[in-house]
């Protein structure tokens, strides 16, 4: 009620909110992250455009890392579970999250997806996001690191055109480098230079899932994640036996 003149009109009350609009997603992401840390699972949010080679990278990763680490994948797609089936065929536990029309995964979808995957026993969980260079960048899922797959056929200027997703990347996997022989105008150095304009710590590993080139370096990067090491040590001590996940080099 208007108090100043008693006219009976409603009051217009200003309210300072100052709340992040995605606060609910961020809470759900924190919740996922706590679960992952409690169970010593390293979690990678793998993003990239449709056809960038995300699934192929996971298949190649399974070939190299599968024998020594327990890997799992949650695959986000608008429709079909084709990618989940491909990854399963490569020997990794995988479940599909079908988003319907949503162009990205959010923390809640990941949480529900976890209910269908025996993720607690994993060393590394990959969350293969919906193929899209825009929307997934905005949503925290509870991951430890963001990895963006960028294929050489997408063009050198993709980092400049989609700066947000590359800014949030801890690593860029430059995929399909076996095709460089037929792409004389594409320069890895120029892609690296463009990344340094949008990533404060530009780290790029060129790989080919077809020839296997660079996959060792990518696997080494995964194993060097402090979290993997830490998780590993803790699990070894807690159970007092030799953990299956040691890297033998």
């Amino acid at each position, binding site marked *: *009620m208007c108090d100043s003149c008693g006219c009976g009109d*409603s*009051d*217009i*009350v*200003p*309210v*300072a*909110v*100052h*709340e*992040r*609009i*995605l*606060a*609910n*997603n961020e809470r759900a992401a924190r919740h996922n992250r706590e679960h992952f840390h409690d169970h010593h699972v390293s979690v990678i949010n793998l993003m990239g455009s449709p056809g960038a080679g995300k699934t192929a990278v996971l298949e190649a990763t399974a070939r190299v890392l599968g024998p020594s680490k327990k890997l799992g994948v949650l695959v986000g797609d608008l429709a079909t579970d084709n990618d989940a089936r491909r990854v399963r065929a490569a020997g990794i536990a995988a479940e599909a999250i079908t988003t319907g029309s*949503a*162009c*990205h995964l*959010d923390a809640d979808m990941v949480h529900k997806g976890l209910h269908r995957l025996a993720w607690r026993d994993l060393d590394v969980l990959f969350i293969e996001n919906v193929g899209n260079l*825009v*929307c997934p*960048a*905005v*949503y925290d899922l509870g991951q430890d690191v963001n990895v963006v797959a960028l294929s050489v056929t997408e063009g050198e200027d993709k980092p400049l055109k989609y*700066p*947000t*997703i590359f*800014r949030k990347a801890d690593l860029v996997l430059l995929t399909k480098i076996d095709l460089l022989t037929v792409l004389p105008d594409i320069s890895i150095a120029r892609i690296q230079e463009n990344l*340094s*304009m*949008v*990533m*404060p*710590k*530009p780290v790029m590993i060129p790989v080919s899932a077809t020839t296997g080139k660079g996959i060792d370096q990518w696997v080494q990067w995964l194993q060097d994640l402090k979290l993997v090491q830490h998780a590993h040590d803790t699990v070894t001590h807690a159970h007092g036996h030799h953990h299956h996940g040691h890297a033998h080099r």
Partner: protein
Amino acid sequence: MHEYSIVQAMFDQIEAQAHQRHAVAVKHVYVRIGRSAGVDVPLFKTAYDTFRVRTICEDAPLDVDEVPERWDCPEGHGDIPPGHRLTCDTCGRPARMASGDEIVLERLELEVP
């Protein structure tokens, strides 16, 4: 098109605020969106206009304060100019984002009987 999801999340927040204060209508909505937050502002506004029909926000104009992207040196060597590599020329450290990443519901004007 995640702008629709973001607007949906904002409506949940607005409804919670309005409910808490026994408001009958929202008269104005103010948000702050960073230029590098990954949100297309025209699309965000379109999504808002689509959603607000027959809601508590029906008569509430939306004000978007667009925040420029700004980077600086974490060691205090000043701003990194736009179009520059995201490392400090003085100390070589990776730049730190000072602003431009926010998606914030700043304030509301509520009609309270």
